[in-house]
């Protein structure tokens, strides 16, 4: 994977939501949902994005797709001609074309499908509104896609309510695949599913990646899923990436205290393994009023004075393994 072509290069991406207060709706501050995020990925790679709820995972995913307009920063994406294009500089028309290559799979298969549209219409919609296909060709393409995600084409005239959670998620995946994208953000795509069905969907996503050479950003709070599917992992805390490394490395050798706490908090499905728990005290910091210095210091047992005073800088602990922590090399 190392030698592959970079498909996505995010630089300094920020999204600040203004807090409006008072009778004149004056902006009194900002919620830094995504704060100076740098991220890159190779073609055909899967990136895991992990963090607690409220840390800005979803906002980051949507900012990369420019579904939410980012405050600043650039998102370079390799288009079909092989040129790196800054997605954030495109106008509406160009963006529409670009979205054919960048798609999103939603978390909740129950609310992300329109109950008044048939499965055929749901899958055909992105093709129709982008004016890609019509008539017979459209029909053939929809048939092809629905079989690709493992559903029978006789379901095409049904409405979403007739399907189970796993089947609905397959429809959501089919919709995302319709325009033949090369990059998909899976936003908690398997969180709402039972483990047995979750395994089916994870296998499906992996098969599709092999067949179609799709790159995924896989957002999840479930570390087991992240470990299973990812090549590289980005750990996020209060709008910032705090640790980056290959999946193997980060799970075997986590450096940031937050990553360590996340990993040790995970229950293992084996009663014989009794982990030494380091329970993380307190809760995720308020992004509207984050603590000084390192955002993690109030919950960190390794915190020293420097952590309270100064914001940490990136340190490379081994090749490709970066940590945002003052004390990463000492602990």
């Amino acid at each position, binding site marked *: 994977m190392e030698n592959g072509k970079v498909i996505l290069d995010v630089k300094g991406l920020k999204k600040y939501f203004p807090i409006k207060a008072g009778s004149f709706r004056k902006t009194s501050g900002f919620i830094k949902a995504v704060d100076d995020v740098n991220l890159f990925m190779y073609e055909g790679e899967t990136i895991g994005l992990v963090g607690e709820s409220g840390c800005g995972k979803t906002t980051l995913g949507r900012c990369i797709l420019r579904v939410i307009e980012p405050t600043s920063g650039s998102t370079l994406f390799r288009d079909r001609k092989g040129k790196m294009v800054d997605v954030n500089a495109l106008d509406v028309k160009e963006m529409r074309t670009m979205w054919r290559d960048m798609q999103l799979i939603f978390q909740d298969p129950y609310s992300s499908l329109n109950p008044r549209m048939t499965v055929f219409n749901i899958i055909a919609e992105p093709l129709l509104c982008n004016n890609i296909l019509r008539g017979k060709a459209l029909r053939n393409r929809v048939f092809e896609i629905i079989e690709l995600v493992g559903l029978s084409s006789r379901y095409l005239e049904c409405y979403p309510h007739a399907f189970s959670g796993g089947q609905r998620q397959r429809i959501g995946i089919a919709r995302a695949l319709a325009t033949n994208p090369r990059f998909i953000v899976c936003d908690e795509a398997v969180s709402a599913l039972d483990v047995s069905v979750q*395994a089916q969907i994870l296998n499906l996503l992996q098969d599709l990646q092999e067949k179609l050479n799709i790159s995924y950003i896989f957002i999840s709070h479930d570390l*087991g*899923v992240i470990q299973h599917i990812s090549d590289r992992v980005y750990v996020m805390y209060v709008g910032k990436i705090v640790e980056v490394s290959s999946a193997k490395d980060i799970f075997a050798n986590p450096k940031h205290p937050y990553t360590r706490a996340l990993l040790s908090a995970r*229950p293992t*499905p084996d009663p014989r393994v009794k982990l030494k728990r380091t329970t993380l005290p307190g*809760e995720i910091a308020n992004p509207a009023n984050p603590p000084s210095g390192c955002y993690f210091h109030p919950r960190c047992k390794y915190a020293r004075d420097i952590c309270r005073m100064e914001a940490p800088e990136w340190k490379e602990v081994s090749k490709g393994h970066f940590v945002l922590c003052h004390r990463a090399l000492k602990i």
Partner: protein
Amino acid sequence: MSKNGKKILELKDLSVHFYLDEGILKAVDGVDLEIKRGETLGIVGESGCGKSVLAYSILKIVPTTARVRGEIILHPSDSMKNRKPIDIVKLNPQGECIRSIRGGEIAIIFQEPMQAFSLIHTIGNQILESVLLHVTEDLVEARKIVLDILKEVGISNAEQRINEYPQQLSGGMRQRAMIAMSLSCNPSILIADEPTTALDVTVQAQILKLINELKKSFNSSIIFITHDLGVIAEMCDKVAVMYLGKIVEYADVDTIFHKPLHPYTIALLNSIPSVNKTAKSRLEPIEGSVPYPINLPKGCNFYSRCKEARDGICNVRDIQMFEIEKGHSVRCIRVQNKYSKGAK
């Protein structure tokens, strides 16, 4: 403790059936279970397998359209002295007796505290209500109990929180308040219905630790309902695996994870993405999805998804629970045949 190991709750052939226009929905079908004092029983299964209905039937809070059959026998603790074992199924759902059991003898932690709490009453008043009902009628003393229990579950600044509304608390704090409420009257049985599903792993770890500590100090029994096998491995002594309203395997936690026998349990364990499996390998999912639980065909419920299923053996008649060894029962005809041959 000497009282440990005494049976505290027994379910005998419990069935909860809903009579719908389409047919009979057997949400819980012939469940036999027992819980001893100080024990944690885990009930695990996929969504729609009847875990929650089973829990609700113990408190008699199932919808009135349900028909409950069988027996739920509660052996009251010392606080309800001179009481004979009570069959909860026979009680009037609005009667005095069940109301003294609910919240007092048996308490429940709901999955979604935001929906379980009333939004127009403060946390303190809601906990106070159950303390006044079950423990004491003295308002000052009750208030002190509430404050103590809030501190016990790790709510910081309890004097202030007691006057706050549920929506002012974070998810983890709300779940703590929920736990405080259920523990406020020293229940001998605590039903935890997916208590950590809506929470982050870090908060989940805090809550699980808390439940374990409280279990030790109160010596209550816990019925832990979840679909997360990791949580089961961590919390439980005994595990019952449910599939479509029936218990398909029952054993202690070590046996379930290391010597499972029912194909469903095995498949369920194989489908978890976990540390032990090498990354980027393929998972072994269970094919298909849970069948619609109305008018199921004869035979094993897992027949349609089971890799081991054999026509003419598995789908002929309903399968009974079979005790492989003491404390390990399986509802699978093929496992049963294999073991009874081995015994001969």
